[in-house]
């Protein structure tokens, strides 16, 4: 058994030094979305309007980037979330599991301006996770015998029928976290977690916007949802509206 030399202490010093930064921190959403260009495929975190990357979406709207393919469980509402990108006719195709809350979406779909690919929600989640795990394809029972299975391989395992789904390919994943550190570690809050950590794993480049940005060491290493290695850019978002779709009370 070998013993690391005293140089390791020097190494430790370097790692903890404030002089050296990973340079993942960007100033704001505008800087974070640099490089996103026409025709790209984006993953956008959130379930309904819960846990969506509000700042980044607003910056995308301002950027007027277009012909985007968006992988997101939902498509926002008419005047919030991805709905704003639809208003700007920036989206060529949506890959989602449920898109029922958006009149502009319906109009563009019926007029043929917008293409939509609907997938079972669990398959959508797992195809993100697969991309982040280097798993190119997997089998799921969801959708066997339905329209979703068309053009997909099906196979029996242990007497049950499954279809093969492939990992998503995307250029950028954009997620919203509750807290993050400057290394890129992320923590999500309650059910705003949803697709965010899965998409964070999956992007070629992953952008995270957070409500609170802290220094490395401030988050408990045992309770981090997305390890820093998956995050390329991080910034503190501003003015979160956090709109509620179904405000149900007792």
């Amino acid at each position, binding site marked *: 058994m070998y013993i690391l030399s005293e140089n390791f202490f020097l190494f430790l010093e370097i790692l903890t030094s404030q002089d050296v930064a990973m340079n993942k921190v960007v100033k704001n959403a505008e800087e974070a979305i640099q490089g996103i260009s026409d025709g790209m495929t984006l993953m956008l975190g959130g379930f309904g309007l819960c846990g969506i990357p509000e700042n980044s979406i607003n910056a995308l709207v301002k950027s007027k980037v277009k012909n985007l393919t968006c992988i997101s469980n939902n498509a926002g509402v008419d005047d919030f979330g991805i709905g704003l990108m639809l208003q700007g006719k920036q989206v060529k195709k949506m890959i*989602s599991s449920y898109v029922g809350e958006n009149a502009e979406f319906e109009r563009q779909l019926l007029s043929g301006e917008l293409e939509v690919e609907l997938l079972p929600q669990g398959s959508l*989640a797992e195809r993100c996770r697969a991309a982040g795990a280097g798993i190119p394809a997997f089998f799921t029972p969801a959708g066997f015998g339905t329209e979703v299975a068309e053009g997909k391989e099906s196979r029996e395992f242990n007497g049950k029928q499954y279809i093969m789904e492939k990992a998503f390919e995307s250029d950028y994943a954009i997620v919203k976290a509750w807290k993050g550190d400057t290394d890129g570690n992320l923590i999500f809050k309650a059910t705003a977690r949803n697709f965010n950590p899965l998409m964070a794993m999956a992007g070629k480049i992953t952008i995270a916007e957070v409500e609170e940005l802290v220094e490395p060491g401030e988050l408990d290493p045992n309770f981090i949802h997305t390890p820093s290695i998956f995050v390329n850019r991080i910034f503190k978002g501003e003015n979160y509206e956090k709109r509620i779709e179904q405000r149900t009370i007792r």
Partner: protein
Amino acid sequence: MLDKQGIAKRIAKELRDGYYVNLGIGIPTLVANYVPDEIDVTLQSENGLLGMGPFPTEDEIDADLINAGKQTVTTLPGSVFFDSATGFAMIRSGRVDLTVLGAMEVNERGDIANWKIPGKMVKGMGGAMDLVASAQNIIVAMQHTNRAGESKLLQNLSLPVTGLGCVKKIVTNLCVLDVTERGFELKELAPGVTVEDVKNATAGKLIVEGDIPTISV
């Protein structure tokens, strides 16, 4: 006839102590109101919550805490949050003991259609296809006929299928049916409903054997 609450009450009788239960939107959600006193069930919401509590008070509302129907909810002691891949891992691996959902149509073989009407705007299947493909124990809660008065219990589906051979039990406003290899087996009648009423409202093959008890809720 049962009203929506009646259907929910009857389904609640299928709950067992310790069950993890996934309730769909609509009538299925009402089942939560009728959990028998002596048992303890845990509600799963596939977006990322196990141990769903009641709606919040005005003060408790948290935009970051919603259920699969996008409604604001609360937690309970023992609740846990997770990502949506884990939510569906629970479902696909058969850890959810009972799934209750609505349907547009069910056929004699237990195939279900509940996500798409050709010619109408498609909203999407959400988690329905994962649920019906995975759950061992699915109860459909629905009206026996549609708004046009046509049977929703068919020999063959007319609408696009959501999942094959998955429905084991159906509770409608008229009756309780088991779906077996023989067809729709009539098990219980709603108060004031006759076998003849069910026959008239059922387009698929209906099996009626012996005396059919009345639903007690």
